[in-house]
């Protein structure tokens, strides 16, 4: 038995995905469906919309509503020093090699609200590399890029971020990086003074520079295999020889066509290094 409602819902979502692409240029056709269904159902519930048809009407009448939808449909849940061992590995295994370059370029792909970006900047600062590093922070979503630039995070999270920071090999007082007021922690703006922020859609946009390190963590899990392959190729084009790629804890290069031209630097932290051609 299969609920008729499921079939109707799924068909309506497929049509919606098609029409969003046509109208707004955002292509969600390569997104893993179970997650998309869940996000849309959640959005319908939050906005008190009875059906995908109703959602569709609002989306196409109101670009601001679409912006809001875009933010909710793409997952923007993130944290500082998520998986501290990953950042420790960056600090101990990757940054010492990057320090041999006179100028370092890093791409934080899918930077969301900036928690990862600021974690990375703190790491670079403590390893004495921040001044000669340029970080390109990109996301599909313009709204979160603005937040990422501001570096204002919920003060209530600072206790857990502090322990994650120390687990990632933090060298000073974590609280020295932010000032707190009214329940918020505002991070030192000088951490991102060399960072640039651009909208970039991994599903449709192309390579725009060459990098020594690309971070793209917990973004690929939302994509199907074909779209993942596209993104891996995009990263491959965008990495210098011997450049590094850092993925999320449960993401892997192993199934990809490009994996033969990479070595796995740290298996449990999913850090890969491009081989020389």
């Amino acid at each position, binding site marked *: *038995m*299969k*609920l008729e409602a*499921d079939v109707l819902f799924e068909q309506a979502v497929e049509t919606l995905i098609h029409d969003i692409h046509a109208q707004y240029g955002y292509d969600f056709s390569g997104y*893993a*469906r*179970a*997650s998309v*269904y*869940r*996000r849309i159902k959640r959005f319908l519930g939050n906005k008190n919309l009875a059906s995908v048809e109703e959602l569709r009407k609002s989306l196409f009448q109101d670009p601001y509503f679409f912006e809001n939808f875009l933010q909710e449909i793409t*997952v923007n*849940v*993130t944290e500082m020093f998520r*998986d501290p061992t990953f950042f420790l590995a960056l600090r101990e295994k990757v940054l010492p090699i990057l320090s041999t370059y006179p100028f370092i370029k890093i791409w934080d792909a899918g930077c969301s609200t900036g928690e990862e970006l600021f974690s990375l900047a703190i790491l670079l600062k403590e390893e004495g590399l921040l001044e000669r590093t340029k970080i390109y922070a990109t996301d599909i979503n313009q709204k979160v890029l603005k937040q990422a630039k501001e570096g204002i995070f919920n003060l209530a999270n600072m206790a857990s971020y502090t322990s*994650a920071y120390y687990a990632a090999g933090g060298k000073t007082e974590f609280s020295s990086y932010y000032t707190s007021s009214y329940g918020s922690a505002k991070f030192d703006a000088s951490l991102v003074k060399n960072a640039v922020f651009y909208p970039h859609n991994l599903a449709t946009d192309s390579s725009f520079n060459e990098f020594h390190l690309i971070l793209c963590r*917990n973004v*690929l*899990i*939302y994509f*199907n*295999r074909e779209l*993942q392959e596209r993104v891996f190729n995009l990263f491959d084009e965008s990495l210098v020889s011997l450049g590094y790629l850092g993925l*999320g*804890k*449960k*993401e*892997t290069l192993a*199934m990809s066509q490009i994996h033969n031209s990479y070595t796995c630097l740290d298996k449990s932290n999913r850090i890969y290094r491009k081989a020389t051609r």
Partner: protein
Amino acid sequence: MKKETKVIVIGGSWGGIKASQEILKQLPASYGIPIVMVLHRLRNFDGNLQIVFEKRVALQVIEVEEKEKLQAGYVYVAPSNYHVLLEKDQTFSLDVSELENYSRPAIDVTFTSAAEAFGSNTIGIVLSGASKDGSAGLKEIAARGGTVIVQDPREAEVDTMPLAAIASVPGCQIMNSECIQAFLLSLHDH
């Protein structure tokens, strides 16, 4: 006609590890239906549950990797700090979105996606736990004609989760772990 693929989804919280060991211990390594297990644990606790199971369970117990294909003979455990969803093509998707029922992984997320992807071929089992997670997902499974089982609250270490599931799906089958195991074995024989 090709036999439709079944899936067994198990959810547990406090007391859930012990209960699931009881349920799985007699299942043969060749057991014909893939099993997906969501057990609440501490966030950022990286200790692998495999170790807890490998001595007591003949089936292969592994952590879910994203896009992996479901296979018989395996018990797939939800990784810490990720929601696990099932796709129609019988692969896994992972998700780091908001906590649900204060949990990630949340049982409701996995149960609901299993119901949507596998319909009446879903067997959902709610075990011991001090949470209400699982009851909404179990309802979704029941609504699509799947099999819904709840551990007998009298046997469960903490009865909150079984009681919530029973309240949510009054027509569920209430069994102790021995009966659940016998039921799962009977599915294998057919």
